[in-house]
């Protein structure tokens, strides 16, 4: 998964550009799969991409079983041919990182660029890191959630 270090982020949105460039072949942040939330007044910038949750609400709420998990890597994937565009997964996602392709009428999440994530590659601030999913990942997520709050305080 893409592990973010919000305290290193400067809100340059380079990752969004790189993401859309990789997946859409053009620079279009409206279709990015990684999102930088910039809370300007609080000076807190938080990049968020799909966490490939251990107990993924998108997966368990999909009526057509279009969302599956790779048993080896743990990666959560939307299978376009089964997706009917009902957006249940978007509603279910606790982090609001499930995106949607209007033209193709399918949901989309971070696909880790097949193991070479462009957002990580483009981030010169080392605010993004590509890490394997581990059983301890809940601790990582908790830490991520707490750090922006600490930075804001």
């Amino acid at each position: 998964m893409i592990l973010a270090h919000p305290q290193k982020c400067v809100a340059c949105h380079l990752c969004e550009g790189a993401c859309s460039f990789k997946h859409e072949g053009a620079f279009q942040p409206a279709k990015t799969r990684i999102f930088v939330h910039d809370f300007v007044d609080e000076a807190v910038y938080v990049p968020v991409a799909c966490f490939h949750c251990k107990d993924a609400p998108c997966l368990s709420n999909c009526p057509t079983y279009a969302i599956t998990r790779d048993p080896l890597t743990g990666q959560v994937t939307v299978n376009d041919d089964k997706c009917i565009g009902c957006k249940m997964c978007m509603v279910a996602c606790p982090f609001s990182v499930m995106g949607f392709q209007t033209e193709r009428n399918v949901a989309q999440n971070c696909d880790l660029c097949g193991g070479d994530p462009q957002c990580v590659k483009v981030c010169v601030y080392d605010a993004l890191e590509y890490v394997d999913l581990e059983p301890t990942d809940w601790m990582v997520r908790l830490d991520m959630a707490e750090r922006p709050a600490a930075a804001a305080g």
Partner: protein
Amino acid sequence: MPYGWVGHVLRVNLTEGSAKKEPLNFDWARQYIGGRGLGTRYLYEEIDPRCDPLGPENKVIFATGPLTGTFAPTGGRYMVLCKGPLTDAIACSNSGGYWGPELKFAGYDMVILEGRSPKPVYIWVYNDQVEIRDAAHVWGKTTEETEDILRAETDPQARISGIGPAGENLNRVACVINDKSRAAGRSGVGAAVGSKNVKAIVVRGTGAVQVADALKFSELVFESLKEINESPVTAGALRGLGTASTVGFTNSVGILPTNNFQQCTFEHANAIGGPTIAQTVLRRNKGCYSCPIGCARVTEIRDQTSKWQGRGEGPEYESIFGLGSDCGVGDLNAVLYANYLCNLYAVDTISAGGTVAAAMELAERGYIPKEDLAELDFELKFGNADAVMKCLELMTYRKGKLGNLMAEGGYRLAEHYGHPELFMGSKKQDFAAYDPRGAKGMGLGYATSNRGACHLRGYSMTLEWFAPMEMRLDPFTTDGKAQAQMQLQDKCAAEDSSGVCTFTTFVVTPDKLAPMYNAATGENLSVEEWMNAGDRIWNLERLFNNRAGLSRKDDTLPPRMTREPLTGGAVQGQVVELAPMLEEYYRIRGWDEDGNPKADTLARLGLA
């Protein structure tokens, strides 16, 4: 769909209250790259350079470059062009933030504002939907308040570029502010927007910017990102301490202008320099769109005992000089507070500071009658931070006689009191923070800059002081300065027009930037043709100015720079020998003795 450019211009006629989408002129886009060059071409075609810059016949263009909105390093810039209210010359002010890319995602390379609205309005652009909306409820509000209100009534992800109270009051040093604290600062472009009764342009776009050769483009960008990330300038000084990192250096060599350029070192320089900022007021770094440098400083005043309180962005090096050393203010909290005020009012920190500094010297020398100083409440003298804050308020709201005069900028103020020689600038625009007596190339640059005195039109500091020893030009001689300045001016004109930030170009040279532009747009310019395009842009700006009535008589420096040497510091005994540099400069530019481009020069550049 075109590559690099998105191919459309939004033309808003404010007199009629109409907006229309028209195709971009691609012939011009190819010849003038984009942004600054292309915008100048449109202005040159569409307005009379002799027009009143605050009249409805002037036009204001918000222009992006072909790299704006891509992930080219610092590909987030846009420019505001018009005839400058401060300078009566061509104006092009450059800003970062997120507004420029958003405009391209909405499907426009440029917005052209023409005419004058009968009442205050703002323009709301959501892709193809454009509305001219009433702005009575935000008129008079600061930039921050305006942004919050307009975002709440349009779209939570909208980006906003607009003016503050200064622009509304046609203050000639008013700027345009986007994203709360990024400024298209110079030449009074904010007043031109204010004269059209436009408060802001609010943009939200969901479209795409495409590039011609994705693989090549990607490869060049990743190489450049690596270079930037390894450079001691961009990743070291600028990311580490911001532009404020320069304060210590310029002060140590003696070119940090102090007390309206009466001194070149400042006793409190350390108190307002980069390291102090990092240790005391810095909250964190920020980057503009697509920026791998991250020089912006998000700050807050933490000292609870200080009379100045607040938070915001800044200060940049130029603001530290303008509101700090040039006014003799050595209290960092005061400099920060003045900077925040400038952002809220939307005035240019350089020119506002320069104007206050000129007023201070006029007052100290007794040239301003006592009754004119009555509404000030504070003694107008160097080092008095209270007076700086009060002056900013008076000039923004044009309060009283002094406020009204300061709102006209430093030159007109000094001229009114009979001492225009105490205004430190060129073409009525204030100098930036490098004393040209200690960097002669900067002197030539200030004098010949098309938009009035400016450090970024030909930033020869890079060669005269910042370059490694073996590449350095002696800052105290005039040798080779005309040639260096000309090349820097052409280079910068091309780079600005492409949509990247000057700081990127410290590392990413034209031999990489030109191919990047080619890969984005599908053009095929050699490095030589790229520089040639810069030359063409520079000469077109000059033509605009000549038609506006400017000539050699305006390529000047105040007598303090050419006749009064400083005592102390490394620049001891130095003055700027402008005449010989100017003569050589005109000659190699291919201009006549009065500074008009010759016929064969115009023919060579395709401007005939």
